[in-house]
């Protein structure tokens, strides 16, 4: 509370958006009921907005301006002022064939990851409702353990499991009749290597989805499901028309988050390839990083990053409307 009060003077712009009937109280919100009612939400929001504007809003603006400048090593060290170059960076990036193949690769990678995560997560959540309690406990422990695994740790473990010479995966696959994966290098080709990375991403993402959905499922009134069953609905019908609509807000939220996270996959690729992803492993994030810190063309990196953000906005805009609908229903 006190933090909120001290920051009130720093958020004047939103106040003007309040109804004119409340006008005439520019500095101190009076104790009156009416004024308190519109000031309270802004007081509550103030600290959050302040942090976000400082550490996210400003850099975002800087990212945009950077992408229109010529900004390389000399500018970074301050030997030369950054000069305005208009759309030159974008022209260079958008006419580069490599960039477009990176875009396609990223979309396929993220789309596949999200789909696998959501479907598998939902199935696990539904399964958890139907198993005996000791199985549920076991699965929960496994899920939580894999959820809590730091990405860096997970990458390391997967690298070890898919190792060419001593990897347990090659050994297991070779046990299958007619299959010989002895000494198979999973990272010799981009698509195969990215599939392994996708597996890693999905493995790490399922627990959050499954556990959250499973918590959501416990809030679905049993009576509703029983009623549907009595009325002759099958297992799928009950899920489709009773269970799913109730947990839909959760599903939408988690799909959105998955899209963001899977488009932003970075350490997985970066660490898996030892800090130097090959061209056929590049996703938009690593590509932007490579341009900025590998070739020291910070402006080009910023342009690619901004294009990623814009692309993501397009993907997510669809969900945004639904989110707002949820917000209105409250």
């Amino acid at each position, binding site marked *: 509370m006190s933090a909120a009060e001290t920051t009130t003077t720093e958020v004047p712009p939103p106040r003007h*958006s*309040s*109804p004119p009937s409340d006008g005439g109280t520019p500095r101190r919100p009076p104790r009156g009921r009416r004024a308190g009612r*519109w000031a309270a*939400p*802004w007081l*509550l*929001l103030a600290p*959050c907005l302040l942090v*976000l504007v400082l550490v*996210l809003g400003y850099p*975002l603006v800087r990212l945009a301006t950077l992408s229109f400048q010529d900004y390389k090593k000399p500018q970074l060290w301050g030997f030369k002022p950054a000069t305005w170059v208009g759309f030159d960076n974008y022209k260079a990036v958008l006419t580069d064939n490599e960039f477009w193949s990176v875009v396609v690769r990223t979309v396929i990678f993220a789309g596949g990851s999200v789909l696998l995560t959501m479907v598998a997560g939902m199935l696990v959540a539904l*399964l*958890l409702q*139907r*198993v005996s309690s000791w*199985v549920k406990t*076991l*699965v929960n422990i*496994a*899920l*939580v*353990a*894999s959820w*809590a*695994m*730091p990405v*860096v*740790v997970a990458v*390391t*473990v997967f690298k070890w*499991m898919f190792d060419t*010479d*001593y990897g347990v995966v090659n*050994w297991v696959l070779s046990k299958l009749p007619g299959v010989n994966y002895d000494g198979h290098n999973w990272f010799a080709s981009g698509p195969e290597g990215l599939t392994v990375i996708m597996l890693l991403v999905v*493995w790490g993402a399922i*627990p959050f989805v499954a556990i*959250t959905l499973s*918590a959501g499922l*416990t809030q679905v*009134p049993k009576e509703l499901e029983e009623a549907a069953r009595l009325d002759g609905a099958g297992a799928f019908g009950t899920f489709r028309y009773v269970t799913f609509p109730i947990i839909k807000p959760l599903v939408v*939220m988690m799909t959105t*988050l998955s899209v*963001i996270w899977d488009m*932003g996959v*970075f*350490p997985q690729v970066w660490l898996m390839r030892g*800090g130097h992803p090959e061209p056929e492993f590049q996703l938009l994030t690593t590509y*932007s*990083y490579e341009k*900025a810190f590998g070739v020291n063309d*910070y402006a080009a990196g*910023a342009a690619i*990053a901004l294009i*990623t*953000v814009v692309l993501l*906005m397009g993907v997510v805009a669809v969900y*945004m409307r639904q989110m707002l609908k*949820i917000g209105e229903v*409250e």
Partner: protein
Amino acid sequence: MSALTTQPPARPAPSAGAALLAARRRRSRITYNILGLIVFCLSAFPVYWMLNTAFKPAKDAIDPNPHFFPFPLSLENFRRALNISDFWGPVERSLIVSAATVLIGAVVGLLAALAISRFAFRGRKIVIVGILTVQMVPLVAMIIPVFLLLNQIHQIDKLSGLVLTYLTFILPFTVWTLRGFLVNIPKELEEAAMVDGCSRAGAFIRVVLPLLAPGLVATSIYGFIQAWNEFLYALLVMSQEHQTATVWLSSFTTQHGTEYAPMMAGSTMMGIPIVLLFLLVQRKMAAGLTAGAVKG
């Protein structure tokens, strides 16, 4: 709730239909349990493989025929992992940063979530869209400008700078998730408390907060793990001698080749405490939850 109210009707005369239903239910329960165990194995295997590799002698780890059980048990890998470079310093720094981030994030985020879920006000929609939008921004895309900003406000190589950076992804997530939990708590409960003489704050503390607690805990834990696991910004902001735990672990890869066995030992030391802590709270969360209160 008690056995008395639910059991008796089925007891006295089990008709043929009821018996058949029970048998079918038992059979599908077994199928589900088997599926559940498969999920358990798939999900747990990487974790198990990490532990297995960490606890067996290093030479067994590179045997072409994998040893599935860590016999003989060896702690040599842990000794080696601790000796390669300072371990406790990075862990301490990671703890400080994660705890601070989550604490600030939970308080600030809860206030904001309350504002957008419990108040009708002009500009509310804009704020919601804003927070959603902010959440869409991939942090990887912000490395360059964030670095420039931290440099400007002299927060490079400082834990506070890292906390500030982490808040950018913890906060929107916290606000949005808590909002989701809050929406699930009916306003009527609060209003009933207010009719009974509670103030708005009183109603929140006595009615909403207890119902929200599991969600708040879940969100905080998730935030803690996110902060603990973060790698990229920790690598960028902190210097070599002030590195966090994740960066410490990744520095294993730059040694001559990759020493998998000590690396798995390091991974174990870093991951397992978090996993245990998480399991502990998970149980607490499962206990109550809002289901009963809301229905009543």
